[in-house]
């Protein structure tokens, strides 16, 4: 009993608080209107008078009443529990009175019982004449004598007894009941009815829960049914149902009891079945005996239709289907709704008025026939179907009509712009044409030529694809033909005799020739798929063109000797590289890389990782790739024992070879030595002392990178695949520069290996000294600590002794020191042991809060924003006219919803329904 009881109280408190939430307003109102209950009572009365039906409450009352009746019917146990909870709680919280008058007598009886019981427990006499007034009740509560209280179990017993007695006495206590009614009428007392109502709600809680369960059960049941139906076929269901339905029909017997009177439409059949013969006899008694139903003759064929589904189930199916259909129908709005929600500006009324506007482009002649003759002709034409109104609409009109307003505006603007531009160009051409100065034209032409060259030059460098494109464009623009406007005009005006013009024309012709020959000749055979040869081909082509260009140029900077030489050199270099690459592809010699080593590392950029997308730094890339491959091979070899042994010497040999090889390598080694020297510089960080380690180049091969780079990368990759098993980290072809440094080191130490180590130590020592020297007298750490202490002290809470010296003391010689001190505590910024930087050694965290700033700081990132940066970004650009252009300002300040005053905003029309 005990835990259950607890649970119940728990539940009831829950119920109470949820009820309190619902009635919050009433409670507040009551509290506000003063504590006089009569006021509230009046209020309640008013509610009823006004016709304000708080139906929910009535409903509850109703349900309560029914439960009450049920309870009365049920056994006494229930009653007990109810009382128990009632008394156990004994709370006198304020609740509204249940004014339901539906089942007052029942309630009154019960109340009577309860009152009696309560009073008995209090040890008071039960007297029917005692009308329980409010004050009485209160006093009763106040004057409880503990000695007179009965223990709980005893009380139950007593209750039981009382109940039986009262039930027995119920019959004879007729005037008792009356009295109670009277009692209730008088009873404005809150406490009694309140506690009662509460108890009701408490005890009812279970019941209500049950009811809720019932409610949910209904749905469960339904859903369960549906689930079944989903699984089974419809036919199955039907047959199943039929089998279910037929049985009761068979067993059912009907009692026909006609109580209706005979009238125009209804005949009392008297229970006898009406046969066909009977009916025919009424018409023609002679044939009545021969009459039979044709249907009944061939019995098998004319079977009764299958029993339709029960209406309930049929309806459910219908509803389900209807719901699906409606959903589908209504989902058509989704796009419109979405568009409206996302729109930056919504202008209401929204439904567009579809009035066709006539513009200048959609000019229409008088379509209406005006004179008699016209009318006549029109009639004839229409009759003979020669005139079709739809056909008359011009293309433009259709196009315009189909477009939306925005599109149309856009298009009009475009057209206007084009017209304007054309007009201006024309004007300009005219003006230029008018200029007679030859000088001007010459300059103009030169400029044009220069531009052209510049364009071509840039093209030469660019990729083959671009070139192809360009060539195609050239072909399209008929630059190689003399049919062009310019050429024609030149010929016509006789300007072709001018040398330069002539040259131009000839050039054009030549180009045309070349193209033609290309078209006819070797165009087909030239295509090849191999990567390298492709590169080569491209290069060859480029060369050709370059040569031609050079030839064509004749004069100018590019035509000068040194430029040509440079061109030649670069060409040679490139060819050489190509050669090497090819060799690589075919064979496997490392010498290539050794040779190429010459240019490695000289131009390394320190301290920066460089991502090169090709074109500009092809050479560097290829070099780096080579370097990487070489290193790999070296490493591979080093795994070999023999190689290991001989490596040192090899390296020495290598360097020796290098020294002897060329001046350039010498230079490099010198540079490397320089670097080594720099290492000892203490002002530079340790890392900068090893420059090559830092500079890592990552070769990124993409579409934009040149063919050379691509090829190189390809080769490198294939190489890697060959060696690749033991070094995976070279995927991005990062150069490991330790190798080179090692070489340098060895080279240094090759003279005297033993001394080398000592040297470095000495150097280290020197570095320390230097550092010490540099920071002599800077005791930074201690200074910092002192500062931190000071800050901690300053920001800590302080105590101030406010005692006035001598005040309240005795004067004289052997006075006692004063005991009482007046100390004022001044709050600092933060207490010593609550500092954030308490355990952080090298930090001082400023914990001062500027209260004036608080006003401008929001405590958290507001809702739609996800981060602080995002929010701040939204505030960054000012909106005002001082800071933005007028258009921007207007756009930024445009309200999202614009309504037109005094116009009806109609509900949205479906755009898909028109």
């Amino acid at each position, binding site marked *: 009993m005990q835990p259950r009881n607890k649970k119940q109280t728990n539940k009831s408190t829950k119920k109470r*608080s949820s009820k309190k939430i619902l009635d919050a307003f*009433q*409670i*507040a109102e009551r509290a506000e209107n003063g504590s006089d209950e009569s006021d509230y009572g009046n209020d309640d009365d008013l509610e009823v008078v006004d016709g304000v039906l708080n139906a929910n409450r009535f409903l509850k009352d109703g349900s309560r009443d029914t439960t009450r009746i049920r309870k009365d019917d049920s056994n006494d146990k229930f009653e007990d529990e109810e009382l128990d909870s009632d008394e156990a709680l004994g709370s006198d919280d304020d609740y509204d009175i249940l004014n339901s008058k539906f089942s007052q007598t029942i309630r009154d009886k019960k109340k009577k019982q309860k009152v009696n019981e309560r009073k008995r427990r209090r040890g008071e006499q039960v007297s029917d004449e005692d009308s329980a007034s409010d004050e009485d009740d209160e006093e009763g509560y106040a004057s409880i004598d503990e000695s007179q209280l009965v223990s709980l179990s005893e009380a139950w017993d007593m209750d039981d007894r009382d109940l039986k007695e009262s039930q027995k006495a119920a019959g004879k206590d007729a005037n008792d009941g009356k009295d109670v009614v009277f009692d209730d009428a008088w009873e404005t007392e809150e406490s009694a009815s309140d506690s009662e109502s509460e108890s009701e709600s408490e005890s009812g809680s279970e019941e209500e829960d049950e009811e809720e369960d019932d*409610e949910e059960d209904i749905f469960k049941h339904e859903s369960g049914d549906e689930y079944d139906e989903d699984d089974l076929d419809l036919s199955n269901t039907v047959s199943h149902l039929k089998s279910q339905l037929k049985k009761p029909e068979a067993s059912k017997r009907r009692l026909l009891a006609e109580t209706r009177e005979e009238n125009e439409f209804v005949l009392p059949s008297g229970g006898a079945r009406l046969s066909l013969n009977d009916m025919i006899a009424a018409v023609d008694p002679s044939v009545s005996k021969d009459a039979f139903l044709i249907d009944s003759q061939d019995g098998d064929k004319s079977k009764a239709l299958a029993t339709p589904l029960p209406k309930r189930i049929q309806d459910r199916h219908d509803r389900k289907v209807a719901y699906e259909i409606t959903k589908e129908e209504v989902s058509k709005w989704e796009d419109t709704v979405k568009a409206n929600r996302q729109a930056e500006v919504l202008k209401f009324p929204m439904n567009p008025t579809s009035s066709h506007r006539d513009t200048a482009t959609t000019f229409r002649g008088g379509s209406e026939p005006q004179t008699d003759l016209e009318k006549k002709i029109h009639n004839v034409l229409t009759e003979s179907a020669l005139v079709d109104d739809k056909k008359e609409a011009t293309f433009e009109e259709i196009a315009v009509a189909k477009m939306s307003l925005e599109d149309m505006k856009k298009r009009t603007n475009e057209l206007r712009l084009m017209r304007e531009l054309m007009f201006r160009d024309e004007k300009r051409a005219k003006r230029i044409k008018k200029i007679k100065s030859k000088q001007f034209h010459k300059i103009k032409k030169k400029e044009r030529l220069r531009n052209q060259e510049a364009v071509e030059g840039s093209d030469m460098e660019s990729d083959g694809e671009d070139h192809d494109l360009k060539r195609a464009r050239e072909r399209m623009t008929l630059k190689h033909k003399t049919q062009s406007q310019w050429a024609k005009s030149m010929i016509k005006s006789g300007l072709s005799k001018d040398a330069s013009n002539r040259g131009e024309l000839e050039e054009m012709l030549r180009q045309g020739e070349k193209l033609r020959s290309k078209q006819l000749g070797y165009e087909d055979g030239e295509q090849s798929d191999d990567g390298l040869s492709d590169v080569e081909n491209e290069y060859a082509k480029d060369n050709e063109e370059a040569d031609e260009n050079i030839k064509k140029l004749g004069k100018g900077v590019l035509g000068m000797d040194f430029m040509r030489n440079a061109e030649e050199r670069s060409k040679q270099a490139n060819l050489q590289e190509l050669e090497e690459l090819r060799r690589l592809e075919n064979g496997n010699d490392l010498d290539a890389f050794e040779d190429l080593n010459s240019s490695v590392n000289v131009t390394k950029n320190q301290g920066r990782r460089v991502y090169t997308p090709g074109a500009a730094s092809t050479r560097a890339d290829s070099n780096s790739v080579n370097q990487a491959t070489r290193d790999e091979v070296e490493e591979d070899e080093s795994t070999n024992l023999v190689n290991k042994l001989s490596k040192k010497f090899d390296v020495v040999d290598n360097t020796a070879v290098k020294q002897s090889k060329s001046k350039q390598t010498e230079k490099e080694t010198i540079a490397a030595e320089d670097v080594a020297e720099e290492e000892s510089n203490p002002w530079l960080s340790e890392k900068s002392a090893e420059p090559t380690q830092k500079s890592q180049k990552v070769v990124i091969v993409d579409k934009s990178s040149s063919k050379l780079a691509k090829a190189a990368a390809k080769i490198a990759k294939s190489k890697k695949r060959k060696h690749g098993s033991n070094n995976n980290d070279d995927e991005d072809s990062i150069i490991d520069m330790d190798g080179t440094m090692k070489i340098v080191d060895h080279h240094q130490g090759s003279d005297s290996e033993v001394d080398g180590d000592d040297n470095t130590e000495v150097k280290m020592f020197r570095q320390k000294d230097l550092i010490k020297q540099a920071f002599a007298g800077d005791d930074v750490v201690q200074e910092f600590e002192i500062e931190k202490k000071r800050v901690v002290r300053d920001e800590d809470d302080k105590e101030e002794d406010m005692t006035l010296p001598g005040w309240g003391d005795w004067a004289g010689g052997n006075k006692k020191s004063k005991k009482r001190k007046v100390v004022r505590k001044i709050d600092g910024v933060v207490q010593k042991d609550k500092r954030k930087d308490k355990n952080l050694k090298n930090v001082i965290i400023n914990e001062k809060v500027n209260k004036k700033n608080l006003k*401008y700081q*929001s405590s958290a990132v507001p809702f739609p924003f996800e981060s602080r940066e995002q929010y701040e970004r939204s505030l960054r650009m000012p909106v005002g006219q001082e800071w933005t252009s007028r258009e921007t300002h207007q756009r930024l300040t445009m309200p999202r919803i614009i*309504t037109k005053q*005094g116009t009806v905003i109609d509900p*949205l029309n479906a755009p898909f329904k028109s």
Partner: protein
Amino acid sequence: MKIKTISRSSDTYVPVRNTQESALPRNLNPALHPFERAREYTKALTATKMERMFAQPFVGQLGDGHRDGVYCIAKNFSTTNQIASGSGDGVIKYWNMTSRREAVSFKAHYGMVSGLVVTPKQSHMLSCGDDKTIKLWSVDSEEFDRSYGDDEVYTAANKGLIKTFLGEHSFKGIDHHREEELFVTGGATIQLWDMSRSKYISDLSWGADNITTVKFNQTETNIIASAGSDNSIVLYDVRTNSPIQKVVTSLRTNCIAWNPMEAFNFATGSEDHNGYLWDMRNLGRSLNVYKDHVAAVMDIDFSPTGEELVTGSYDKTIRIFRAREGHSRDIYHTKRMQRIFCTKFTTDARYILSGSDDTNIRLWRANAADRANVKSSRQRAKLEYDAALKERYKHMPEIKRISRHRHVPITVKKAGEIKRTEIESLKKREENARRHSKPGSKPFASERVKHIRGTAIKDDKN
């Protein structure tokens, strides 16, 4: 000697035509306009304060109101300035809002007028009541030649009456189809009527309980929603002539409003003090919960723009919600206004009407600081700029505080406090229970689902 002087041509600043605004030369040099954010913040703050200063939501009341509580208001959807109202003593009135006077009034029913609607085509009033009748009224006073005084209404013969439909039970709630001559009534059963017939054409009932309110969808015009005393909301389709979906909530739904811009969304006001937004395609959860009232929501209405909602409540206040936010943006109340039973937006979305127990129909501004007068372009630009600034800086603490500050009746405030503490305690209790039970055994219930007991047709998703 040549002396340089400052000369300025008047051409640069004097307007050419008198209609043209004079050019205000301004220097765009950013150095001359420093502290842009600080200045804009201050402007926003000032604008917020100004808005609160000019906030005067109450415009006035219509005529002398009724003689009994106003329990229904109906809009005339084809005009901005005409409405109808019905009261507890069976009188219906038609109002001209421009002059704020009543155009006509009839004693329509014995007992309460429980439903009122203005027919879209002819602008007739269609009223239903507890006396089992539906009546069609002409509002064109020329047809019956006179208007009564308030005293005569009760005795005079009703000349404006066009037609009477007799029903089998008392009616609760009525609404008219937007395009066709159909209307629907609630009550013991939900019935569909044709204007040209004397008997209802179909009975759409699903279940046995009373229907208290019915509403036609305004955009997808063949769909009806109803709420009944069995705490259910039911959807019907006129085309298939059947109910289609039902959802049962924990407490009764008092009112329904369809979103006029979003065909599948509708809002309901519930006895549990909250408003709910629903998607009719998925009634397993509501889209939004509108909280703030401290007593039952009696009426809810969408702004014609579909962006805002107005609710009238039993706690004697009107609240305005943005459709996509959970809390109200404004609260309206007056000392004399009693329980509110109907609230409506006007058809131009600028005003709000409320009918309450105290027999008056009140007219409010939808935006308290808004004024209807004609504004110069400059003033308009300024207001727009202010609005933009307010929107931009609305999260700043000071601005937030000022813009949210409202005086509310002390009872409402107190009730809110009570509610808050009780809800908090419930939450705490729940949290404790969750803490001491097996993890996962007591899942969190979403606030948008909590109030739903179940739907008749289960969605595929759930």
